[in-house]
């Protein structure tokens, strides 16, 4: 760790590679990280933190895992994916069916769910060898449609929906938000840590190279097809694990929970947070989650007090505002909240000096 408690305006300069590679560079950062972890783990015990708030946090944690995978593929590797929800569905139903039909517990099914989603993701990632941009996006859209159709007509049980056992450790059953919180948060932390380190490693650098200029990357000796497929595999593995968490949290597996609209929401989250940034993913998920709750409060008030609004218009505000957010951020701040966060940090570190 740097021999300083705070982040000096001149920056941290390491004299060893090992020190330079640390994520936590100063003592202050270490203390704040530990404090944040403690805060996270005692949160359910705090006053005013109701079951509803914990549910929101759990939902955000699961969305974070999904969006981390999506950002690895889309943000870091530059391969647009608008069918992420379908891969979440693959993981969800894999986990649910293994649990329901064969009695496998969550601790076995979540890995298998991730692997199953990754296998399907790699299959749909094969066109990426020739397709880019909009054309690849349409392929992933095709994945969403095809996988939904298979779930609807391929297996009656997936169309009907079925119950799933809750997560258990010994005699502890995680069937309430207060308990499941301690499953969702560690998963989110581990997956975030893994994603952060992955992007600082060789595959991560290869993804960035492919995103920035795939021809140049190929010219440097990077096997772009292999790394694109790896990116698809990682992205969909994340989606599969999140799907498994989701069904064991809801204790119900249902087709209607995985729609194209959800895929769009995940994309909006990483647009708002910032492509190619792990911190941005976290900020984007929190921002959209909080924004949705604000709209839930404002929507009915607007509908009740503005007589010219038709029935249901208040709820429609959600779609308008969330969609509008994507447009605003792409136009005004394409680097997302992550960039704003970096500007804030720079401002804070230099304060009271301007530069």
């Amino acid at each position: 760790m740097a021999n300083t408690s705070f982040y000096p305006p001149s920056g941290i300069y390491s004299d060893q590679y090992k020190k330079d590679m640390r994520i936590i560079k100063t003592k202050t950062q270490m203390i704040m990280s530990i404090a944040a972890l403690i805060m996270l783990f005692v949160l359910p015990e705090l006053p005013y933190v109701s079951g509803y708030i914990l549910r929101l946090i759990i939902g955000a944690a699961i969305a974070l895992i999904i969006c981390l995978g999506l950002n690895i593929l889309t943000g870091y590797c530059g391969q647009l994916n608008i069918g992420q929800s379908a891969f979440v569905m693959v993981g969800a139903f894999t986990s649910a069916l293994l649990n329901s039909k064969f009695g496998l517990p969550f601790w076995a099914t979540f890995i298998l769910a991730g692997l199953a989603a990754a296998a399907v993701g790699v299959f749909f990632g094969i066109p990426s060898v020739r397709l880019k941009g909009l054309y690849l996006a349409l392929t992933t859209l095709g994945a969403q449609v095809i996988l939904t159709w298979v779930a609807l007509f391929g297996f009656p049980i997936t169309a009907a929906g079925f119950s799933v056992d809750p997560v258990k450790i010994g005699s502890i059953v995680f069937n309430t938000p207060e308990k499941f919180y301690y499953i969702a948060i560690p998963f989110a932390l581990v997956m975030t840590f893994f994603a952060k380190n992955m992007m600082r490693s060789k595959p991560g650098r290869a993804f960035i190279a492919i995103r920035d200029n795939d021809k140049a990357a190929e010219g440097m000796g990077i096997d772009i097809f292999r790394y694109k497929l790896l990116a698809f595999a990682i992205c969909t593995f994340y989606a599969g694990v999140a799907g498994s968490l989701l069904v064991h949290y809801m204790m119900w597996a249902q087709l209607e929970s995985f729609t194209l609209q959800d895929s769009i929401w995940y994309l909006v989250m990483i647009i708002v947070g910032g492509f190619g940034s792990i911190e941005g993913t976290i900020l984007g998920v929190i921002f959209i989650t909080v924004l949705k709750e604000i709209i839930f409060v404002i929507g009915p008030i607007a509908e009740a007090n503005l007589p010219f609004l038709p029935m249901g218009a208040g709820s429609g505000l959600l779609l308008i505002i969330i969609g509008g957010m994507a447009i605003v951020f792409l136009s005004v701040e394409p680097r997302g909240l992550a960039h704003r966060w970096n500007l804030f940090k720079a401002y804070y570190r230099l304060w009271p000096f301007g530069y």
Partner: protein
Amino acid sequence: MTGRRTSGVIFMVMISSILSAPLSTGHAAGPTRDVVVGNISAMTGPTSGTHMMCQSGSRDYLNYLNEEKGGISGKDGKVKIKYLAYDSQYVAAKAKDGFARLREQGMDILTHCASGHSDALMMDYEQAKIPLVTGSQGVASLWSDWSYGNYHSGIANMIRTWIVWQKSEWEKAGKPGGTLVLGTITTDEPYVPLALWDVDSFVKEQGIRLVKETIPKGTTDASPQLLRLKQAGVKQIYVLSSANGAVVVLQSAKSMNLDTPLTQCAAATLGDVISLGGPKLAEGYQGEYFFEPMSENPKIKASAGLALARGLWKKNHPKESPNDMYLNGILSGMVIAEGVRLALEKVPPDKLNGEAIKKYGFDRISGFTGMGLTKSITYLPDDHIGPKQVRYWVVRNGYVEPVSDWMPTTTFRIPKK
């Protein structure tokens, strides 16, 4: 403002909104013990039209009771209904969030009109001991002791009941043709596999033939499917689709001059089809109703319940065309009110909760018709399906009129797991 200051402001706003989130959750307040009815509906998404109407119907009826009747009277006092709503956006996880929020606000009874939500929330309302009154029970919730239906008798019974009706008409006509051949045309919507669950076995038991065709959702032409059904010699066709799909089928049938009668399943009502396609297109189209339709046919005398429903619609939605699913919501509200009224005969207002309303209220509902809006609703210990009677109607000159008497529905239940 410089970029840095803007960043600082944005983050202060974000932090403030996060910290203020606990303040936005509601908590039950006030000294009076109202009965809290929570509604979780998809106000956005593919089923928003139906859900909005159901929510509106139950809310308008319960508000009417509060305002016009002063609440619901019991032996030891009166209670008013406090109606709370939550938008699930047609997402099961959000529906569960909504349940948690409404529960924190003191919810005693849950209501909605969504099979998916009925199933996804089953563990929640059973654990919380909060009865559900729903216009649409799902697969698992049809078996639940805490779920009370007030609309159809289970999605798998719609086509079965229609087949039974067609067979009886065919037998009355002297079994022309030797074997009865029926057809069904479906769209690829999530409920379709449930509606057709094991229907081949049922068809075999009935000794008839069923020809099935599918049209993709969003298609604008169903002619090939209808042509194949015609070539197969079907006598009648059952349309398992929403109103949009039904209009496409009707348009295609009209362009082919197909005279085979078509019947709409309860996934959409004739009123929806008339609104969307127009009375001319819908002429001769048949449909099934589990309650009286909203259509103001001058030849048919409305029941007291229907007259009340029409009045509430005109009062609360004067500029909009009447919608049949509004009646579904009205009926939910009526069942809720009846359950609370019965419970108040045994339990004083301050002791009322979900469990008491279930035990002393809903479980005692017998022969309830909603002022003539539907046939008898009786809940038995192992059967909370609701009205098990259906009637078929046909569109004539823009109105709907009955084409059959009330008849019992089949009572098949899809296995729970």
